């Protein structure tokens, strides 16, 4: 029996379904890069992924910014890189047939469809705050995916929904035609990031270099294409601290 460790790679459950295969391709590249065994585990929801983090089962994670704060401050993870040009933005949308034309039309008691994606829900509620709506004054409908948020709007089970912008933009034309965006965030400073656990400490620097060099190689390029990324931007500790500070300001009540 080999005593060689098996590391675990996981990805924030809010990644778009069309990129599932991309993460498995990334995992294959990663194993070659590290010359180590890495298992790619994709969790269905944030709760089960957080439990894996608490249990110290995760070694490398493409994390939601909310979880990044916890991973860095409580679990001593190191931020390696973020995808170039990819930011977490929220679209607030209604059904195409809805009488609601702007945020000001939303009233207390509004039925809101959302997933358990923490940063999109936070950004969405910040946008609703400007029309005096809060968690206490909306009627939430929690569903498992952005497709189900769309379905809730189309079937009039909710009046308004929160979407990750990338997920909204990837809906088919048939779905998009039945939805109407009211407002989209333009924050730019909140992003997912790739973080490594203390167990991966010895591999951190070679991995950072390999991530930075990915676009220079044919194989790296095809992996990036599968993820729909153009490249990785390396993160310094202060970049990570800054984003965590930002998330803290947004979470503060």
């Amino acid at each position, binding site marked *: 029996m080999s005593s060689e460790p098996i590391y675990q790679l996981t990805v924030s459950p809010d990644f778009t379904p069309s990129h599932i295969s991309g993460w498995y391709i990334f995992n294959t590249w990663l194993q070659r890069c590290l010359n180590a065994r890495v298992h790619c585990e994709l969790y269905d929801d944030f709760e089960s992924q957080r439990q894996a983090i608490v249990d110290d089962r995760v070694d490398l994670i493409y994390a939601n910014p909310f979880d990044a704060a916890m991973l860095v401050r409580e679990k001593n993870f190191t931020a390696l890189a973020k995808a170039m040009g990819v930011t977490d933005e929220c679209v607030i949308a209604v059904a195409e047939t809805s009488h609601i034309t702007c*945020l000001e039309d939303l009233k207390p008691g509004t039925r809101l469809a959302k997933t358990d994606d923490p940063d999109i829900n936070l950004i969405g509620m*910040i*946008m609703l*705050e*400007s*029309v*005096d709506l809060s968690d206490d004054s909306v009627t939430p409908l929690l569903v498992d995916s952005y497709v189900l948020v769309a379905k809730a709007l189309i079937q009039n089970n909710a009046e308004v929904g929160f979407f990750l912008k990338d997920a909204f933009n990837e809906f088919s034309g048939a779905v998009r035609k039945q939805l109407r965006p009211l*407002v*989209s*965030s*333009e*924050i*730019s*400073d909140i992003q997912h990031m790739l973080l490594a656990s203390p167990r991966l400490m010895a591999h951190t620097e070679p991995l950072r270099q390999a991530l930075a060099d990915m676009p220079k190689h044919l194989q790296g390029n095809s992996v990036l294409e599968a993820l729909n990324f153009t490249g990785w931007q390396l993160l310094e500790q202060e970049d990570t*601290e*800054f984003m965590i*500070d*930002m998330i*803290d*300001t*947004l979470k*503060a009540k």
Partner: protein
Amino acid sequence: MLNDMNESGVLAPYREYNQPLFQYGVRHLLVNDTEVPYPDGKLIVSRTDTLGIITHCNQSFVAMSGYTQAELIGAPHSILRHPDMPSIAFKGLWDDVQAGNIWHGYVKNLRKDGAFYWVYATVIPNVRNGGVVGYTSVRRKPSRAKIQAAITLYQTLKTQENAHWEGPQS
């Protein structure tokens, strides 16, 4: 360094004020009553050092303030100080963040062109290796109801401040 405002680029008509600013003496302000609405979906982000000197600002800050990034970096955050804001609001801010706490509040900001915009601001201390190295401020769109409440409160506080200030002189 904080220069006085001059009429070049300031919307007319304007009122003139001499605004005392902590550590910067008095700044001559030109103020116009045009409100620039806060855009939906945007966040204004800045960081300062422990003295309130701006070290980082995002594009939304540049767009809403009317200053260039080069003008903002190195300037004190009080470059946005509107004369309608009571001093006690900023005293509360500094007391809170210097004690290591988070501060929230509604703020009327002065643009380079003399117009104004309202924000809901949150300021937190940036703690590194156990020490405060600066502050991060994130501003977002406030509701009209909250702005109206702030206008009423700040007018009262300004009246009290002016009465207190003018008393000894009269």
